[in-house]
């Protein structure tokens, strides 16, 4: 049996994958298939019953659910072939995909593959949190699926661990369903999202405890309490009936790993160039797998940008050889968790967007970009909250002069 063929096969139906699919169709790409392993499109936003979503995409403020529905509707209207309940189990090389569905396993052939499988929150196990393992311990996304998708209340008095944007989303989700968080606990010494946002828990009477360590989760069969060591070294026990581990996002990179794409230790996701191209020239990657984590709007814009490049590449010549220029590496130096992209292809089409950077902890000081000989090419001063991403513009720099590795590092303010 010959494989079914598409121009572009997109893996993952969240904001990045949907926006790329819509844009590809808009640019005249004939056969675009989107494979979604779940039953419905929309990705993480479909779990969020609260605003703000959609400003950049639709010019109005929507709940995550309304936003997800709207984006999915646009993809259908654009003529994207939507294949829900289809799991891509392997990709490449040469644009081959192995796909499992309730109908069985099949092979798909695509001129280009776009992976947009997103990210997930770190689990209690990954964070090596001590204690016993009762029911009632989950991530924010699971809580949101409980209340928004399944109409269930998993607990009434949880403790939220984490203080990122998604942790605030957890508070909003709880409060809209009569769940009253007991406390918000952050292991670092400062909140991870912009401090001004933490007026929300204060107004709602949820104490925010920074610098607190979880010493033990207790209870059987359900959570009954959590034991903490507070910033001042004192121990305390909070009675609660659940724990929400929020944030500390990890790329959903299983497919990329199975497909032997080169991975970046900083992000945990695939290594890409500024066009989103992975180490396999037929495979592009967009969305939160390459930068855990950005907003839905950011992923949407990125999906659109990469889709334009793919459309142009396919239009230039049918079955055009993909761009295989080796390019120039960018290394995340001292003080930085990651720099995206990790590679710049100098001959490639399209513009070089700003670098997307995350520091280890809060970034206060100066970012320094240098080349292989140590010559400083550009600096930029920064002052941001720990989990906030930083943009570093490359505009105006002539990077084609040599091919040595570039390095970006953070020099902390003394």
């Amino acid at each position, binding site marked *: 049996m010959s494989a079914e063929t598409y121009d572009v096969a997109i893996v993952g139906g969240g904001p990045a994958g949907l926006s790329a699919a819509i844009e590809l169709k808009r640019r005249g790409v004939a056969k675009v298939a989107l494979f979604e*392993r*779940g*039953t419905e499109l929309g990705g993480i936003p479909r779990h969020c019953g609260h605003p703000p979503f959609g400003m950049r995409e639709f010019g109005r403020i929507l709940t995550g659910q309304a936003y997800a529905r709207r984006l999915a509707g646009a993809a259908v209207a654009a003529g994207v072939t939507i294949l829900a*309940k289809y*799991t891509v189990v392997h990709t490449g090389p040469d644009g081959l995909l192995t796909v*499992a569905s*309730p*109908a*069985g*396993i099949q092979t798909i052939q695509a001129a280009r593959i776009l992976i947009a499988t997103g990210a*997930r*929150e770190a*689990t*209690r*196990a*990954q964070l*090596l949190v*001590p*204690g*016993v*393992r009762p*029911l*009632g311990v*989950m*991530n924010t*996304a*699971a809580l949101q*699926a*409980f*209340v928004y*998708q*399944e*109409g*269930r*209340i*998993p*607990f*009434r008095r949880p403790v939220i661990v984490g203080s990122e944007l998604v942790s605030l989303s957890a508070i909003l989700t709880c409060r809209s*369903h009569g769940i009253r968080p007991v406390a918000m606990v952050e292991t670092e010494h400062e909140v991870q999202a912009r401090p001004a946002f933490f007026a929300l828990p204060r107004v709602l009477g949820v104490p925010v405890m920074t610098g607190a360590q979880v010493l*033990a989760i207790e209870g*059987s*069969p359900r959570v009954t309490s959590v034991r903490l060591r507070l910033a001042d070294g004192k121990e305390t026990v909070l009675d609660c009936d659940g724990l929400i581990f929020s944030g500390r996002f*990890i790329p*959903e990179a*299983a497919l990329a*790993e199975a497909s032997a794409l080169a991975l970046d*230790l900083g992000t*945990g996701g695939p290594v890409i160039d500024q066009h989103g191209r992975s180490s396999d020239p037929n495979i592009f990657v967009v969305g939160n797998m390459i930068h855990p984590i950005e907003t839905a709007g950011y992923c949407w814009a990125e999906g659109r940008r990469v889709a334009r490049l793919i459309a142009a590449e396919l239009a230039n010549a049918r079955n055009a050889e993909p761009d295989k220029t080796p390019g120039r590496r960018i290394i995340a130096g001292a003080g930085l968790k990651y720099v995206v992209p990790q590679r710049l292809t100098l001959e490639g089409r399209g513009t070089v967007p700003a670098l997307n950077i995350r520091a280890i902890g809060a970034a206060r000081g100066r970012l320094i970009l240098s080349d292989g000989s140590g010559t400083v090419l550009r600096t930029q001063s920064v002052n941001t909250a720990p989990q906030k991403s930083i943009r570093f513009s490359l505009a105006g720099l002539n990077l084609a002069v040599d091919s040595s590795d570039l390095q970006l590092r953070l020099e902390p303010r003394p």
Partner: protein
Amino acid sequence: MTAFGDLVDAVIIGAGVVGCAMARRFSVEGASVVVLERAPDILSGASKANSAILHTGFDAPPGSVELQCMQSGYDEYMQIRESFNLPILETGAMVAAWDDSEEGRLPELLDQALLNGVADARLLGRAEVLAREPALGTHVRAALLVPREIIIDPWSAPLAYAMQAKALGARFQFNAGLLSARFDGDLWHLETPSGTLAARSVINSAGIQGDSVERMLLGEAQFEIRPRKGQFVVFDKAAAKHLRTILLPVPTARTKGVVLTRTIFGNLLVGPTAEEQEERERPDVTRPELDMLIAKAVELVPALAQAQVTAVYAGLRPASEEKHYRVHCLPEKGYFCAGGIRSTGLTAALGIARHVHGLWAQSRTAGGERFAAPPTFPLPNLAEHLPRDWQTPGHDGIVCHCEMVTGREIEAALGSPLPPGDFGGLRRRTRCAMGRCQGFNCLARLASLTEGRLSVPIAPEVDP
């Protein structure tokens, strides 16, 4: 099936791997059986947290009951496994030596293996070890290779034993801890939360509570459980490519030590610790020990420094004040005990059951009739290297994406003759929520799919 209140030949206390094997053996031999389990499901104690290896007994004490039970258990597993569709992963094991003193002990371990009848064990030099396992730390010195040590599914196997017992008429009573017991000179009268039952004999396979059960039955116990906590770390499936052979340390007098092994589900597992403690009901994980296990794994296989953790867990092994199994009986009271099965229980269970049934049969003049051809049935395969349900059309969609568990598998487990009593039981039967996202994607859906079908629900409340 045996009805509550009927007089039964044997009441088995505890539905861990030993209790499940015991129920199967007694049922196959024609005895009427009731199994009392205090938890909502089988395998809720030490049996849910082991390293899932079928051991040859190469390092067991020569001439011991433990060795005899391990070897007969191993053989019986291999005989029956195909009729229950129970998987094996033939990896072999290496006892690796990392310094002079460990290397010096390998010849005596080889002698012990040969004495124990493990004739294919042999020593490997450093080059052979590294040729077999190129990802090992290069400071490895030598190893004892034991080819027939293999990996099994630690939960489907005992489930098969229990299901066969059930098919032969055994009754499993869950949430049924023993409240009191009285022997009237002829029969036992056992009080449980769901009523009193009468039995000609009692088999104690109560694991971590083995001594308290013996004390409740006999007034005193001839052994004392000294709980030994074992913590484990499960690495993501991407890590499994770094190791094929089970990696055992040179054992100490007290414990088999920390093992690094694949699991049949495609992960890599490191553990257990061996922590003596008084506490019997709280198998908690602790940060220094988890850090130690991860460091140990990285020391053995340096590439694991980049590996992600999928799960952590702990179990309390029912060690006693002596190293050996505590198998004993009082035939005149119809009391039989398989206690102190601190380790190797997964391998030995079928052998222990055969051994204890032998003691029981000697003490009796009459009994039921043996089933010449007891019914068998294939269990769903959960092993990663063999065909899974998602690969067969018509599975109703994948519910758990990390472990590729289908709606059809969830439904089959919930509707089986021995359905799960709690979420842990469903996880062990299907692998749902056992993968890298630990329920990030599927937990809420599972709460709905299992509504009204688990005695301990995942989330009891529906939004009003």
